[in-house]
């Protein structure tokens, strides 16, 4: 993640190293070490939001255009699906469903969006390295918006209102009305017929479509970037008092339960991919399955439609490519607002936070051949589980 809170994490981890765990203490007060660690989780530690690959990320007109696109159901095969169909504003921009349901039932749980722009990687398997590139994929996914690339561009530029905004923001050429000459349904990601239609377009035409498509993603990303991460009680510690049970849970979170090893920093995620035993052998290996796709993605940070210099693309340049090491690994989700974003895990298999905590304790007990995760030993009794849950609910 774009850094800034990391020096605080360093200080906290050092303090953790010398920390004698105290189980019997007043829950309403923090010692110096506890407070230092908890304060690494404050929103104030977030760096400035900056995606170098999207030059219009902070452009108000781009965010306004992106907001219109985000809620526009015309951008779908049946005219009834928008980004907001699954990312519903009244549900923290999630949908409360096990997995996304648009034109068809998907395979992954819909993540909440506030604060998501700070992430390094997008989708549960991280197959996209920018928010704008991520925003493009559902439009062509047959189970989501179900459109082809040329149909999307035609829809956009035939609308005088959108056309005007694209022209002003991105200098999209409109004089020749080039989009009217595009095949109705051509896409490099579509059916064989759609792919053949795409191949029959000349390279300049394909490039113009891809560029406009990228601009569409950048506008949507500008809107989503305007959704700030939700504040919580941790942001004002020690002035804000937690309940005794939540305070005890906070101590477990940063100590015995070891949640903070991965759920660290202001977003409560270390932005990595970890195997907690939820992958499905032969069916869904998570991060390991998308490594080639990331590198060959024409809309990645190093691609021709990115506004970044190569120096800005460290995550992509130094991508870990070990399929073996990443088998079954999924992105560590941020935990802000976690109580409002059930169900949980990449496939929504856990309906409640109680089930999540129980899962971690049970999975961490696996030994020998049965062990299919990288979890450290997590031992929590019933009281401690309740305390940890109380803390999770205030995030």
């Amino acid at each position, binding site marked *: *993640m774009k*850094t800034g*809170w*990391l*020096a605080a*994490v*360093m*200080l*906290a*981890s*050092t303090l*953790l*190293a*010398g*920390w*004698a*765990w105290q189980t019997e203490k007043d829950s309403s007060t923090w010692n110096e070490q506890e407070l230092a660690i908890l304060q690494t989780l404050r929103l104030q530690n977030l760096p400035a939001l900056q995606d170098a690959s999207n030059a219009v990320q902070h452009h108000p007109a781009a965010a306004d255009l992106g907001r219109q696109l985000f809620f526009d159901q015309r951008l779908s095969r049946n005219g009834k699906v928008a980004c907001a169909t699954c990312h519903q504003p009244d549900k923290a921009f999630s949908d409360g469903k096990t997995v996304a349901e648009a034109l068809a039932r998907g395979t992954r749980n819909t993540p909440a969006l506030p604060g998501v722009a700070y992430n390094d990687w997008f989708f549960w398997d991280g197959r996209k390295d920018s928010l704008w590139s991520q925003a493009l994929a559902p439009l062509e996914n047959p189970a989501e918006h179900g459109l082809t690339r040329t149909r999307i561009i035609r829809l956009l530029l035939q609308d005088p209102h959108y056309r005007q905004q694209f022209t002003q923001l991105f200098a999209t050429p409109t004089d020749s009305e080039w989009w009217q000459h595009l095949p109705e349904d051509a896409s490099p990601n579509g059916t064989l017929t759609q792919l053949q239609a795409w191949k029959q377009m000349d390279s300049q035409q394909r490039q113009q479509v891809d560029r406009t498509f990228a601009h569409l993603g950048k506008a949507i990303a500008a809107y989503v970037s305007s959704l700030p991460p939700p504040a919580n009680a941790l942001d004002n510690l020690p002035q804000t008092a937690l309940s005794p049970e939540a305070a005890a849970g906070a101590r477990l979170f940063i*100590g*015995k339960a070891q949640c903070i*090893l*991965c759920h*660290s*920093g202001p977003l409560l995620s*270390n*932005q*990595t*991919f*970890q*195997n907690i035993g939820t992958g499905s052998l032969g069916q869904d290996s998570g991060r390991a399955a998308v490594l080639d796709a990331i590198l060959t993605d024409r809309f990645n940070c190093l691609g021709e439609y990115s506004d970044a210099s190569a120096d800005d693309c*460290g*995550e992509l*340049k*130094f*991508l*870990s*490519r*070990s399929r073996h*090491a990443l088998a079954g690994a999924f992105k560590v989700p941020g935990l802000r607002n976690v109580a409002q974003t059930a169900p949980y895990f990449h496939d929504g298999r856990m309906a409640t936070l109680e089930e999540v905590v129980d899962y971690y304790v049970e999975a961490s007990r696996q030994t020998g051949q049965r062990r299919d995760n*990288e979890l*450290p030993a997590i031992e929590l009794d019933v009281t401690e589980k309740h305390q940890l849950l109380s803390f999770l609910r205030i995030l």
Partner: protein
Amino acid sequence: MPKTLLTLTLGLLLAGCGADPNHAWHLQQPSDKGTYQATLSCASAPIPGAFQECKLILQSSQAVPANLLVAVDGGMPAHGHGLPTAPQAIPTDTHGTYRIDGLKFSMPGEWVLGFLLDNGTQPEKVVFRFSL
């Protein structure tokens, strides 16, 4: 847990470095066959979550081969996972010094960072162990 924490504390002390991220940090380690004395040197104490500014400095009673290939890998043995990125050792203008690009750590705890030093005939390894 207390044992682990004690180990972490000792790890920091043995590393001979403070935890102040504003100060340079280094570790020294001989290669497994003893040909090289290796120094892992970072602009500041390594921290989780950020790209680190580190270099590997090799010294030897013999000349460090100009064609020496240096590969980097690492991880957390206690957690069974590797580095979150795939760093690269890039030769610099200073003979025997390699810039380590793309190095990141994902969490506090005990880490190993290893280098394979391959001169084409007799590869050697050097492994650094430290705590974040």
